[in-house]
């Protein structure tokens, strides 16, 4: 693969390495038992430092101390240059020696990263250049994953990437449209967002029949319902129930009921679950005389999703943060 060095010069972002960076890199390096390991740690430290400086300047919160690269034991036993971006995950900041060749990435950092930043540290160690970033690794010449200069995106693309992770689309697009984010973590602690009521306050006694009880999530910790308007004369009822039977995981069941007092949903009503990018990942559609629709899925804390009810051209959407 050919690679245009002039191009990387065009988008590399060169930042200074202050004395404190060099001193800290020296301190971390001096804890290593071999000269090769010491050099690796010195470069990893400087690479993380400069990316951290850049993110801080851009107003992005990081936590250096939480990274393996800042942990004395972890950096001794692994070739790591990770940086925790608060709310997004761990970014790997790889020091690159030769800017025009694929840079191998150590196996211990192949997984569990939100992206890889290539950093060239000047021989003087007084400045470093952020060459670019890639959200995923490509296979190297001889197979293993590597950072390919030709596949690097300019450093500013990292800003968009982090923004997508920090402010998932479904949340941001809906926030722009004035839809607020329902915080399910808080629901589980008893703080329910405005507009949601106890189920029996919204559904009619007929709807709360024994059949209703059957379709419920077992061990639901929270059940709440809300009226949604989708261009029909009467509002429909959206119900959400949550259960946390496995640690770290929330099971979510979304149901759509006809207006209280009516027996069936209008035909061609869609109930959709949107993922973080706003893409539909689950969908149910009413046929004739459907008395409810239901979708069930699981998520982990920090994930967002949208629930959309659509009929013809009109939609009503609610956004949720688990």
């Amino acid at each position, binding site marked *: 693969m050919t690679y245009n060095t002039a191009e990387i010069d065009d*988008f*590399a*972002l*060169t*930042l*200074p*390495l*202050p*004395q*404190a960076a060099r*001193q800290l890199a020296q*301190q971390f390096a*001096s*804890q*290593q*038992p*071999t000269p*090769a*390991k010491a050099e690796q740690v010195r470069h990893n430290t400087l690479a993380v430092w400069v990316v951290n*400086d850049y993110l*801080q*300047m*851009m*107003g*992005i919160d990081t936590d250096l*101390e939480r990274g*393996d690269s800042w*942990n*004395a*034991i*972890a950096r*001794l*036993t*692994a070739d790591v240059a990770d940086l925790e971006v608060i709310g997004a995950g761990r970014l790997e900041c790889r020091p690159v020696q030769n800017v025009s060749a694929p840079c191998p990435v*150590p*196996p*211990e*950092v*192949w*997984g*569990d990263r939100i992206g890889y930043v290539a950093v060239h540290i000047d021989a003087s160690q*007084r*400045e470093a250049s952020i060459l670019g970033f890639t959200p995923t690794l490509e296979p190297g010449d001889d197979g*293993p994953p590597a950072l390919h200069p030709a596949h690097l995106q300019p*450093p*500013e693309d990292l*800003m*968009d990437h*982090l*923004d997508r992770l920090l402010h998932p689309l479904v949340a941001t697009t809906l926030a722009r449209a004035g839809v607020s984010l329902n915080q399910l973590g808080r629901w589980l602690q008893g703080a329910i967002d405005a507009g949601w009521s106890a189920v029996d306050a919204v559904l009619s006694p007929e709807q709360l029949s024994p059949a209703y009880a059957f379709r419920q999530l077992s061990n639901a910790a929270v059940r709440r319902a809300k009226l949604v308007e989708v261009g029909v004369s009467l509002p429909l009822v959206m119900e959400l129930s949550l259960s946390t039977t496995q640690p770290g995981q929330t099971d979510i069941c979304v149901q759509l009921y006809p207006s209280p007092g009516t027996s069936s949903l209008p035909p061609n009503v869609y109930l959709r679950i949107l993922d973080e990018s706003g893409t539909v990942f689950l969908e149910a559609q009413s046929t004739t005389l459907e008395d409810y629709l239901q979708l069930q899925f699981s998520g982990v804390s920090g994930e967002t999703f949208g629930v959309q009810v659509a009929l013809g051209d009109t939609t009503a959407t609610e956004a949720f943060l688990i």
Partner: protein
Amino acid sequence: MPEMDELQELVIEACRHPPGSPQRQRALTKVIRLASRKLWRENVAYYEDALQQTWVYFCQNVCEATTGRKYDPTQSSVVTWLSAYLKRRLQDFYIQGREQETRRAAVRGMASRSGETGELIDPVDNLAANPDVPPILQDVRDWVEADGSGDLVKTHIKGRPEVNCQALLLRRLPPEASWEEISAEFGLPISTLSSFYQRQCLPRLRKFGESEGYL
């Protein structure tokens, strides 16, 4: 100068978007990239410190007055504004350095008067001396080899009891065996080994480190 115009335009573009938005971050990044080639340069030990402070100041005050006065494009170009700030920081470092020198000279003078050697004490010399063999490595090795609770040996790749955390950690302690060597030795793909190492072995090691106060 056309580049000056480009910088001004980028500043206007940055400030049209709210702080922390990717649009502003993009434009600020471009300004830093372009302006850094044009800023005042000096070959002094503290230049990078002064420059780093200049970029922080730039990001914080180019659109809103956060830590200083807001940039006024009618008063000066971006490069002139930043170079002026950079020169002030360089001067601060110079004065700080002079003051330190004066204090050291005073200490040296006193020491000489009291009949002791007049050696300079450099703050860098005061950093803890590093022993030849880092004790941390020996501590980790001892812990891995002893495996007091048997947890490291018990935690292994499914169906391969010999490929356990103790075996892998011992091989990855520096001077470490390469992943290729370990892969050949156990006949398992590197990705299987490294993912197991990352998910199972490193967290155990970190936990040990925390309990020993290595953080």
